[in-house]
């Protein structure tokens, strides 16, 4: 088995090196495919080399694989899909992230705008945001399970703690870095307090708020897996610990990890779509 894998790895590496001669558009297609093939081949070679011989008295010696090869992970997907488990877990995880992230945005955006806009608001809120922010959301797991039990709410709270602080600081920083000319122009043209907030401060801060939402959603997706490993018994995080604890099914562990990565890319892609809206595009151009 390892000879074809070795050949594949060498061919992939050769193509990557030779791609220098291709046009840029061809490189953009060829390079990601062949680094993928190379990585799979290296994974296969490495996983195959980790085995030991199990000698049981009275039986022939067996060869036991420690790490799953790519070829063994593929059927794991089919197994997870066939009983519908993977879909239930994906929905459970997404629901928790959406709720925790949504509540964080709902509270975090107005609070951040207020802290950034009002000097008094900044004085009152800033030190506590600064002090709570460096505490890993994972550190809240014991408190959260104590408060909510082994329930959805426990995981949602932990995701909230992960997503909330980047959103508050993002919104506050956005308001503080706003050019003073915007506010002066608004005052000059007779805008009232709420109009100023609605038509100037909020749109001026929006690109940076979207960036902070993107970071917060990324953190939320990181944290949900950790929360589900301890605070609850469903979801993709639970799938991973469960697969290990119930029969050392490392093929299922890896399949679960790949699903987590793919969904993470999807979530990031969704938020990035927001950056293309007409009213925020100005904040993302390289000009």
């Amino acid at each position, binding site marked *: 088995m390892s000879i074809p894998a070795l050949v594949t790895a060498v061919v992939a590496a050769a193509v990557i090196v030779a791609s220098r001669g291709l046009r840029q558009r061809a490189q953009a297609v060829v390079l990601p495919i062949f680094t993928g093939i190379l990585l799979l081949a290296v994974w296969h070679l490495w996983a195959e080399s980790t085995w030991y011989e199990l000698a049981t008295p009275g039986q022939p010696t067996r060869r036991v694989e420690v790490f799953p090869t790519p070829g063994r992970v593929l059927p794991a997907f089919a197994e997870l899909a066939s009983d519908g488990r993977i879909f239930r877990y994906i929905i459970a995880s997404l629901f928790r992230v959406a709720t925790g992230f949504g509540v964080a945005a709902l509270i975090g955006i107005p609070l951040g705008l207020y802290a950034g806009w009002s000097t008094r608001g900044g004085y009152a809120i800033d030190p506590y945001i600064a002090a709570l922010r460096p505490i890993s959301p994972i550190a809240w797991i014991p408190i959260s399970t104590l408060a909510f039990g082994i329930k959805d709410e426990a995981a949602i709270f932990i995701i909230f703690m992960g997503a909330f602080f980047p959103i508050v600081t993002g919104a506050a920083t956005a308001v503080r870095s706003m050019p003073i000319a915007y506010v002066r*122009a608004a005052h000059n043209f007779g805008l009232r307090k709420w109009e100023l907030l609605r038509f100037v401060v909020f749109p001026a801060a929006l690109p940076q708020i979207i960036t902070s939402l993107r970071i917060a959603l990324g953190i939320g997706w990181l944290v949900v897996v950790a929360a589900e490993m301890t605070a609850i018994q469903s979801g993709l995080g639970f799938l991973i610990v469960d697969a290990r604890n119930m029969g050392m099914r490392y093929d299922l562990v890896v399949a679960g990890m790949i699903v987590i990565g793919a969904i993470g890319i999807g979530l990031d892609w969704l938020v990035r779509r927001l950056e293309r809206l007409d009213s925020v595009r100005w904040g993302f151009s390289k000009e």
Partner: protein
Amino acid sequence: MPPQSEMPPKIVVRGLTKRFRRGNEEFTALAPVDLDIAQGELVCLLGPSGCGKSTLLNLLAGFDEASGGTVHIDGEPVRTPDPRRVFVFQEYGIFPWATVRENISLGLRRRPEAERREIVERYIDLVGLRGFENSYPGEISGGMKQRVAVARALAVSPEVVFMDEPFGALDSLTRLSMRQELRRIWQLERLTIVLVTHDVDEALQLADRVVVMTSSPGRIAATIPVGLEHPRDVLSPAYGTLRKHLFGLLGVQDGV
């Protein structure tokens, strides 16, 4: 129309000063300044950076609080910005998240819908932005952005327009055509304009009167009336004499 000397000045500045604190040190950005500006006059504040010309403009517009002295416009003391006196910023003044049309209607929120639309369309035409009314500032040139700022200011029918180096970010050809346009609009609307610049030719081409300012501390060095007919011929001897005189007042040698 009575001679200007019989009308009370539009803007009256008396003993206006501004001091800033920099750590423990206090420094004077603007030494006491007296200045009268007539209704319908176009005045340029000319000077190097640090001469207090922008400080003076911000005080006139009510964006900043004076350390001493007073500004009166039509006999009323100036304390806060007011839509009757609008400010055109050099950069960032217009909102990048709003279209050209939305930017121009900024000051017209409380007008009836039909009136607002009529005014906005009129000023889009006046500054030559037809065809770009739905564009965002990021999609148009620097000169066009500055026209949006001018249109937004004029749309509220102000009595006074303050401009802080409005054409500073533009290339020299665009700058020249913007000056011609400003002069044309000024004649149409009979506005009072106070414009800050560090460009001697800009001041000489535009102004009825040039207020020359010098630094440390910022103060008015001289007030020079420019009695030249428009369009002004930059190669005429009279223009050349004034130009030399202004450079002399600024302590700079003309010619490289």
